């Protein structure tokens, strides 16, 4: 309460001058840093989740243990996760710890959607593909994955939006990004910085959400029905 009171006594909620003066030097790099943190995390998480998800879809007995472990990771509170990670040798304080945490949080959603997408491929489509002489590899890459892709992208969308939010907390362990602006603003009692960081982080999440939704839709051109 005391801090909130202080904030209000130091001036207007938004100083537009500060924004225009620091746009290139501080705001833009923070935004870029945030995009980098999120994008790198999603990319790494996807690189892990795709093979794991394909494996879990092929061997259903692997699905339960995989979701158990990734589910466990998902339940760890983010601040606790950061706290644990900075003590791990080779990770330490900084963006690396943030990325590891964000990857860990994305795994559950991504793997689940990879499996769900592959499971939803009609078995008769796979049977026909096999019966016509496609190899297992060809079936995976030209039939199963393309059909599962919209569901996988839906998972990427959820993971990305979640990650953009959690990444702000990463600034607490020197991860950089928009979270740093928010933390700095709080420390300095300077609401303009807090609001700028918060608004940009939210806007980034919305833009990511909407554009991935558009990608998801474009990936199913076959879903349009124009019955003869």
């Amino acid at each position, binding site marked *: 309460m005391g801090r909130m009171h202080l904030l209000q006594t130091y001036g207007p909620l938004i100083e537009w001058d500060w924004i225009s003066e620091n746009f290139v030097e501080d705001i833009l790099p923070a935004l870029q840093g945030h995009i980098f943190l999120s994008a790198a995390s999603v990319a790494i998480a996807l690189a892990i989740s795709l093979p794991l998800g394909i494996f879990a879809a092929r061997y259903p007995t692997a699905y339960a243990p995989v979701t158990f472990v990734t589910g466990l990771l998902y339940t760890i509170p983010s601040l606790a996760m950061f706290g644990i990670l900075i003590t791990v040798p080779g990770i330490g304080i900084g963006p690396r710890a943030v990325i590891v945490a964000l990857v860990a949080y994305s795994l559950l959603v991504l793997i689940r959607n990879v499996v769900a997408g592959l499971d939803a491929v*009609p078995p008769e489509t796979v*049977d*026909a593909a*096999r*019966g*016509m002489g496609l190899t297992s590899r060809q079936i995976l890459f030209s039939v199963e994955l393309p*059909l599962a892709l919209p569901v996988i992208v839906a998972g990427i969308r959820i993971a990305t939006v979640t990650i953009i939010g959690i990444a702000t907390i990463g600034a607490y362990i020197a991860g950089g990004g928009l979270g740093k602006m928010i933390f700095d603003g709080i420390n300095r009692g300077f609401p303009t910085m807090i609001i700028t960081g918060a608004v940009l982080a939210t806007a980034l999440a919305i833009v990511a959400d909407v554009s991935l939704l558009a990608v998801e839709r474009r990936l199913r051109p*076959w879903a349009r029905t124009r019955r003869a």
Partner: protein
Amino acid sequence: MIEFRGVSKTYPGTEKPVVNDLSFEVPEGEVCVLVGPSGCGKTTSMRMVNRLIDPTQGEILIDGQSNTAMSGTQLRRKIGYAIQQIGLFPHRTIADNVATVPSLLEWDRGRIRERVDGLLDLVGLSPDDYRDRYPAELSGGQQQRVGVARAMAADPPIMLMDEPFGAVDPITRERLQDEFVKIQGDIKKTIVFVTHDIDEAIKMGDKIAILRQGGFLEQYDSPENILANPASEFVASFVGADRILKRLSLLRVREMELEPVNGDGGGLPAISGDLTVRDALSEMMGSGTERAVVERDGERRLITMSAIEELSQDRERPRG
């Protein structure tokens, strides 16, 4: 030619085989229908031909060579495959679906395009209207046509068809069957056709293999002989009590040997030569007549109840 030699299949963890010491030959250019109740191993038998399933015992020869002589995928690219659930690729256009095997075989684009259009024409779908559509935009019957076209795409000498007309309404089904019988008359593929419907078996098959639960072959013969001389109680009950009528449906009126009409035959009802004898019988019974006139090649011939009766008792008659 396809030859089953003592083929058995037992699934791991089970004791009873689903296919039991199966031996028979499908001659070149003929349609062999595997028919029987569910659990008789008909689909399993068919799927062993292109090695989607491997037999536990015995072997299958294709043109004298074991079907294990090449890799499974190579073998399957040479054998057409059509199934009841169709299994079109929902994310590919009709043209791309039909082009699946030619693409795998790396035909050049022009040849593929020509082939796809030709096949769509053959199965009664105008290429200009359907080429670029997606499967979801087609009705069930249209999708089955595409499924059959896709199976024929690389012009394989052998085709496997598992209830390929099973997923549509009876009227569409009958039309697809009629069209396919006509197409097969031209292309003369060696076909293994699976169905649970004895009427479809009689209509489509040059040979019928009747299987019983547990994968036993009860009888393997032409439709006429199976209807005339069922080899066992099981076959007799499976083909049904109306087997004599079914046999009459294999023959058309114009194929019967009939006496010319004496005089003008005036007053007798006329019957089309295109009818099956079964339908002619039905019409004659309906109009309460013992005799009717058939117009054939400008000649008028007499069809009588007793001629039909004679036909139905003629047990060893070869196929007309």
